[in-house]
């Protein structure tokens, strides 16, 4: 009786693993995480050719820079999703590119040691997932008050920089001034800081929309979004809104740095 049950459970696990891939990080949360954010019936493959760059040992958990290098054969991706298994806010951002992107970066919060995932949806409907396991030395990137820092500029101020890369390619770097409050921070007096974060970002230039993004408070305060385009930079417009309905906009007409 018992062995039959065990067998049934094992069979279930194997089936699930087949549908969602075998998680190289061995996280027991991966099933639920991928089901919730990539879809219950998602076809998933773990793909080493996607480079997920970030420190593997993190001390400043409120602001962890990451960079996803998209391999050539996935640059026609339909969507890029950033997930953190062990965050109270597991979904960081969903990016829908409207043209080929070579890499996407941002700064994110990590609550504790966790696998971090970059999932790329190819045009045939398969998710390609890169995983990096990160040791967080000082936990609480989502739940402890942020470090003191420079006084935040007006909420919604957008700062855009463009950089030349080799071969006529360019990099866009967008900083949005925003507290990105998670809703998990309890102050000394017991008050909870309510969630308040950037929800939507659109990046476009003279040729049209480059990318649309849905974002959550697992992005750091004053989030920095980096996008590599295979073409030269042009006049760029960034717009969006936050969870309180504030819309913001930034323009950059200046020539390349």
């Amino acid at each position: 009786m018992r062995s039959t049950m065990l067998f049934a459970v094992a069979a279930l696990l194997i089936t699930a693993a087949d549908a969602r891939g075998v998680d190289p990080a061995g996280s027991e949360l991966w099933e639920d995480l991928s089901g919730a954010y990539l879809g219950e019936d998602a076809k998933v493959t773990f793909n080493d050719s996607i480079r997920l760059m970030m420190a593997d040992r993190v001390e400043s958990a409120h602001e962890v820079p990451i960079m996803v290098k998209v391999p050539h054969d996935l640059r026609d991706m339909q969507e890029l999703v950033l997930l953190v298994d062990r965050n109270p806010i597991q979904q960081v951002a969903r990016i829908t590119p409207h043209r080929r992107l070579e890499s996407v970066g941002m700064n994110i919060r990590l609550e504790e040691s966790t696998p971090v995932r970059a999932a790329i949806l190819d045009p045939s409907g398969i998710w390609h997932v890169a995983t990096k396991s990160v040791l967080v030395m000082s936990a609480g990137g989502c739940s402890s008050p942020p470090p003191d820092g420079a006084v935040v500029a007006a909420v919604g101020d957008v700062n855009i920089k463009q950089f030349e890369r080799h071969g006529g390619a360019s990099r866009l770097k967008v900083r949005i001034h925003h507290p990105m409050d998670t809703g998990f921070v309890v102050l000394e007096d017991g008050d909870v800081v309510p969630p308040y974060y950037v929800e939507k970002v659109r990046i476009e230039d003279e040729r049209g929309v480059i990318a649309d993004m849905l974002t959550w408070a697992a992005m750091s305060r004053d989030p920095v979004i980096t996008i590599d385009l295979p073409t030269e930079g042009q006049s760029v417009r960034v717009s969006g809104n936050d969870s309180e309905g504030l819309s913001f906009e930034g323009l950059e007409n200046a020539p390349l740095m």
Partner: protein
Amino acid sequence: MTPKACRLKDSRTPLSCSRRAAGLARAAACLILFTTVAWDAVGASYGLRPQPVAPGVYVFPGSQDALTPDNGANIANTGFIVGSREVLAVEAGPTRRYGKEMLAAIRSVTDLPVRYAVITHRHPDHSFGLGAFREAGIDVLMHPAEAEGLANEGPALLEFMTALVGEAWTQGTTIEAPSETLTEDRHVDLGDRPVDILVLEGGHSSGDLVVHDRTSGVAFFGDLLFVGRAATVPHADIGVWLMHLDRLESLPWTTGVPGHGPILDDPARFADTRDWIRFLRSRILEAVLTGESPAEVLDPGVPEPFAGMVEAGPTFGRAVLQLYRRYEAMDPAELDALAQ
């Protein structure tokens, strides 16, 4: 470790301490529950033995290691100078226990009273033992900006350090103020033993003190000099630091005691600090100017020839984030000046 378990509210954390440090401490307090529970409190002792480096000058060499429950945060070099009348101690070590053991070890060499303790800067491995010196009525000297930093950041850093090395070591340690501050070079006489205390501001920290014993030619450089270990830069201005290193190199010293690492008899290993902080500055400046992400700077790891230094990886990880943020906030003119 669940986030909930980490959300302890600690009423002992004074409001004056920085929130960031409080966050660190809270997180580290969680860490300790899972890593150092088994540490045996009874056996903790630093086993300090004075190592003579010149007549009347002794060093207690620190471990070339990370902060661990094995070393109790004893990672910095400390020491003392004996005159015909009195004694000057350099640094107070990382805990009150260390400070007490240091005083006992000095007494094993001389009965003369310890008159001064010079704390080179605020960092825990050098300053947290100073309560033991104050308690013994010894004049404790520090730069005022460093004393202020110690008061502000000390309590949270003490919690953080306790989490890393264990309470067996830090028990009884409290954050204390120096009895005297100085902003200009000072000359003291320990009895037929003239000693210079030099003030070097705004390089490695807001105010580093260097102790130079003219008689023996021994100089205690504090953390202006790291040998074989990656220098840390949380409060550093690298340009000023490099100038300070030039000044220290030109002092008439024959034996050099770095804040961390082996004792020197010539300045060749000044390169350990100089090359490293120059590399940090130029690499991170380049990243800021070309729009590279810190993630991309960190990705290849610590390059040669620095990879073999003690604590190179963690120090690089911290330094890239610290300097990147600072350089990124500069205007183009400041960046230009930095690039010169």
